């Protein structure tokens, strides 16, 4: 019997999923912010006891955490120093010299993780071809170490220009500083993120150094305590790129743990897509504070090589810190159940990104929140039953929701509470819709053809309306959606991705050079994956990021290299060109004849197969269950209230069919079925909603 445990520490809850041969035992406990491992141990103890499983018999633990994200967001990492090329002390402070907001004269720029007094230059210079223009002045490192000692620096990032071409100076400086400061952790930019563009590379190295001491200590404590609990299996970590890795690798590159929880959510949606055989999917995860949207093609979440963390201004692009690491490509906006509504200067309703969170929470919670939120609107519109929220554990006040909406929105706009609620809900849905649409276009895809997979506490409430706005005609609400991220961890492959900048023109491809590069990348990635999955068959995939010479944005293309040889040869350039043109045409309509193509970055991934997914594609016989009751539900399309049937999800069975308007209630959420949708329960327990 296989016994696997997944743990996802989130901002409010720690989600646990115990997988016993495919049967999921979920548990939610409150996150213990002072010592996050305590909540993990308590929850693990509880879930194992409830299932009657001996801790010593658990085969694997997979762990994901927002801890790294929070350290960056709240600037609570360790005192960190940087060593940089003389003359380039301010790469991380000057950024790209841009204001992310055009009209606001009072914006703040994201503060660098390492203040200027701790960014110390040393004499050295390597050029774009890797030639040494100025030797590393090793004698200057004594003074650097002294300064760091004086400021009690616990971690150091070393980032020199063009170290992605020639790492020798970074490596040498690292060795010397490590001898001078034996208890200090050292991150080299050529290892953390060996890619061109100094701001992004140094920002990533700084973030790695900044979170390393605390994450390292936390992981060691967690491992010890799990051991004390009797668990003897390896502890594996979920990465932002969607693969899992060993404790050692996570401690070296903790920056790759950022946003691992949401990555698990995308993996979860990907596994549902594979299970149900949908190859063109939009995953939509909406919680209390934010909504996350990810595209999933052929069962695999779309990935990216860069990401922005800790945005300080309305989730606006450019207001955070760039990280150049493999990530699942998601757009995150400030739209959740707790998002606060107000009326702006043009008498328009605006929603979010400020959130009432869980404290004080929406007005309907009756915990002192006075601002109207999306949840309040959902209560007034009949989507959430105030008497049966969170499985009846919490009684909401519809009066408080009505009062907040009338006071803040209705009075100013001459609307009653229902119209105000409708306005709030339509605007938040439109905000999410716009984000989804722009994200899809940026990826060169069409949104209307996609199937939406909705999970997280608030997503099933808003899913059919969003689908209507996007022109999407199928929505799936999986079971156990409340702990979706943790379930995603269980369905992730053991994987490691390595990327390198190595400039090549296809017209003059250096075959030997590329083969050497791929060999060295393979040699780096393979041991990491083998450590996490000993004796398992591994797969290799290779991507090249290419563009027409003169363009600024690259297109990632799977390299057509024969699997058995894994070697580039004399025919490769032509094959790469064909693969590139095909992908470019798919994205942008037509290629540009006669223009040479260049490769900037090479990416190699070693991975195990993801755990097998049982297909659930059979169609059970149709049955029309009787609703438990009916209630009034406002249709945003007409503004009219309609009588909606209400069903309890726990009492539905595969084959049950429900016509909208209806609401399917479960412990942590409710699925709203608009009058234009009909639902059926699939053989795997999924709610499958289709446009009628």
């Amino acid at each position: 019997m296989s016994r696997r445990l997944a743990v996802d520490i989130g901002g409010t809850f720690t989600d646990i999923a115990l997988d016993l041969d495919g049967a999921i035992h979920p548990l939610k406990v409150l996150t213990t912010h002072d010592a996050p491992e305590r909540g993990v141990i308590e929850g693990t103890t509880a879930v194992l006891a409830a299932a009657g499983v001996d801790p010593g018999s658990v085969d694997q633990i997979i762990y994901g955490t927002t801890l790294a994200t929070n350290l960056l967001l709240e600037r609570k990492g360790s005192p960190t120093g940087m060593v940089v090329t003389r003359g380039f002390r301010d790469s991380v402070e000057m950024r790209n010299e841009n204001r992310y907001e055009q009209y606001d004269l009072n914006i703040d720029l994201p503060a660098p993780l390492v203040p200027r007094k701790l960014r110390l230059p040393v004499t050295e210079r390597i050029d774009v071809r890797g030639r040494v223009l100025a030797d590393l002045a090793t004698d200057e490192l004594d003074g650097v170490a002294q300064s760091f000692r004086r400021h009690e620096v616990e971690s150091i990032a070393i980032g020199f220009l063009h170290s992605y071409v020639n790492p020798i100076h970074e490596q040498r400086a690292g060795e010397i500083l490590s001898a001078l400061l034996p208890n200090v952790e050292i991150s080299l930019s050529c290892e953390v993120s060996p890619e061109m563009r100094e701001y992004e590379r140094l920002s990533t190295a700084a973030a790695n150094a900044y979170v390393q001491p605390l994450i390292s200590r936390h992981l060691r404590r967690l491992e010890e305590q799990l051991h004390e609990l009797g668990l003897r299996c390896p502890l594996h970590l979920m990465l932002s790129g969607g693969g899992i890795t060993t404790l050692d690798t996570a401690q070296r590159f903790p920056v790759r743990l950022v946003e691992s929880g949401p990555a698990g959510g995308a993996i979860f949606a990907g596994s549902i897509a594979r299970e149900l055989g949908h190859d063109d999917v939009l995953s939509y995860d909406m919680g209390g504070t934010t909504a996350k949207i990810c595209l999933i093609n052929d069962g695999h979440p779309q990935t990216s090589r860069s990401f922005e963390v800790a945005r300080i201004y309305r989730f606006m692009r450019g207001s955070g810190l760039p990280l150049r690491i493999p990530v699942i490509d998601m757009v995150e906006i400030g739209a959740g159940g707790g998002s606060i509504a107000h009326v702006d200067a043009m008498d328009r309703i605006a929603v979010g990104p400020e959130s009432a969170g869980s404290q004080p929470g929406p007005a309907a919670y009756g915990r002192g929140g006075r601002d109207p939120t999306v949840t309040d609107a959902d209560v007034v519109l009949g989507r959430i039953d105030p008497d049966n929220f969170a499985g009846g554990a919490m009684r909401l006040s519809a009066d408080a929701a009505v009062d907040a909406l009338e006071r803040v929105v209705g009075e100013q706009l001459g609307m009653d509470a229902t119209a105000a609620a409708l306005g709030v809900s339509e605007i938040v849905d439109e905000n999410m819709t716009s984000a989804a649409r722009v994200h899809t276009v940026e990826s060169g895809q069409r949104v209307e053809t996609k199937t939406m997979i909705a999970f997280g506490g608030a997503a099933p409430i808003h899913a059919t309306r969003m689908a209507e706005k996007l022109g999407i005609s199928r929505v799936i609400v999986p079971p156990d959606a409340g702990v979706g991220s943790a379930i995603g961890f269980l369905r992730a492959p053991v994987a490691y991705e390595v990327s390198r900048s190595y400039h090549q023109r296809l017209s003059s491809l250096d075959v030997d050079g590329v083969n050497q590069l791929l060999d060295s990348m393979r040699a780096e990635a393979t041991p990491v994956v083998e450590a996490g999955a000993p004796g398992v068959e591994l797969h290799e995939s290779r991507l090249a990021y290419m563009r027409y010479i003169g363009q600024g944005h690259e297109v990632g293309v799977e390299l057509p290299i024969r699997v058995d040889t894994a070697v580039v040869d004399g025919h490769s350039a032509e094959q790469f060109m064909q693969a590139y043109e095909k992908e470019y045409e798919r994205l942008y309509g037509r290629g540009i004849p006669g223009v040479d193509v260049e490769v900037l970055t090479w990416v190699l991934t070693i991975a195990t197969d993801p755990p097998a997914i049982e297909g659930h594609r059979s169609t059970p016989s149709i049955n029309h269950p009787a609703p438990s009751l009916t209630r009034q539900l406002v249709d945003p399309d007409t503004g009219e209230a309609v009588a909606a049937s209400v069903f309890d999800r726990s009492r539905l069975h595969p084959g049950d069919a429900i016509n909208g308007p209806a609401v399917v209630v479960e412990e942590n959420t409710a699925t709203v079925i608009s009058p234009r949708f009909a639902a059926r329960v699939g053989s795997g327990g999924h709610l499958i909603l289709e446009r009628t």
Partner: protein
Amino acid sequence: MSLDLIHKNVMWNRLIAVVEEEAQALIRTSFSTSVREAGDLAAAVFDRQGRMLAQAITGTPGHINSVAECVKHFLAKHPLETMRDGDVLITNDPWLASGHHNDITIVTPVFFQGQAVGLMANTCHVVDIGGRGFTPDGRQVYEEGLDIPILHLFRAGELNETLVEIIRTNVREADQVVGDMFAFTSGNRVGADRLIAMMEEFGIDDLEDLAEHIIASSREATIRRIAELPAGTYHNSVTMDGYERPITLQAAVTVTDDEIHVDYEGTSPPSSYGINVVMNYTKAYTTYGIKCVVAPDIPNNAGSLEPIIVSAPEGCILNVQHPAPVALRHIIGHLLPDTVIGALAQVIPDRVIAEGSSALANLQLRGGASVAGEYQGEVVEFEMMHFNNGGTGARPTKDGLSATGFPNGVRGVPVEATEAIVPIVFWRKELRQDSGGAGRFRGGLGQVMELQGTDGMPFDVLAQYDKAEHPARGRDGGGPGAPTRIELKSGKQLRPKGQQSIPPGDRLILSLAGGGGFGDPFTRDPAMVAEDVAGGYVSVDRAAELYGVVVDEHGTIDEAATAVLRG
């Protein structure tokens, strides 16, 4: 009634998403660094009358507000009734569009159910347009490259091949420029498709009601903000280096109950060189400056722009006439926000900022046989454009932003990316100590760059810098920012404007201006001064001299000595 209102507001949000998609599509497919790296572009949607309804978040003010004016000229020449589905129109006329030949404007009518319902438009900077290139040295606009009057690029879907051939033979980087024209066309196409999808979804046949709603509510919201200001006329003038002589920008800002009128009577006559500004561009940066202070949160569209009226005497440097040279009109245009903000500072001192370095400092370099002289080493032909910024002015409650663009909205390019394509080595690119104007809140710092040709190869700089003789002024007792300096490593000072040589082995050192300070520096919190010294933003000497704070290089304050200095 209220559902109708909700739908209108939802569609308003949608229009902003539509033009953002337009912008993203053209960024991803374009060739020129100014569009794809720097985001020097505008994308917008217009109603049948040519009124701008929404603009993309991505973009820069000089282009956005210029394109808002420009579409009216297209409609004057080609009334909507004469347009056909599949038509695409083009121009780069400086007087009709955004003020210099490098900017190409593409306009596409959008047809729905057989009727033209609106227009999509974008304005973007292409890499070359022929002539002398991107330099102020021209004496007439004829030297500044190819002029494309308002013409059809596509007529009912059919490409105007004659026009494309003419462009192809007149520009230096033909593939890139022509490729960009297609990228801009497909950007409009993406926007048009999305607009049509929105109309189908909401079941509307035209944009008239929606346009009226957007424009009326934005206009009224802007007027409400204007009405909060004390009525009166407020004057300010800014003097800048100019090319051959200093230039004074003189503004009279008149605030009434329902409009703000900016008049530039008294401004200097044109320059003989290409730094002159056309009226469209003057309007663009003037309205932008006013909007940042008066109504920053109100969306930028025809309604919110309407109550802001701009005039300049015909023939002054802000309203030059054909054939004046205009290639580098941004050097002056970028100072207009400082000029009008300085006038409004007299009535709303708590909402304005101090003057900044303001003019975008392009590092435009040229290498190759034409500039190498008798140099014996390897010579490589190249033209490089690298965007850089000095410091912005301090704010009433915050320091200015260091090495950050205002009012331009463009992004810089990484050193490693630039060194990968041109034979130049940057030896330094970092903040410039003591360049931020002293104040209770300090001006943003400028930056210093030091460059050399690879293996010592000589090269030319096409200098285009201001603020060398007239640095950014502080406000309310704040000190000035440091002036721009341009020199050789070997010691020789260079002129801030015009083409000049960097000899073999020598290095170019460019020190960009800082922003002005805000408030009396002696009232700055000594702890903030100490932090500035510890970080090297301010030197120990200047801390004592300008701020009256005695502090060592580690940031330790000598309280007693400080008390003596501060009195």
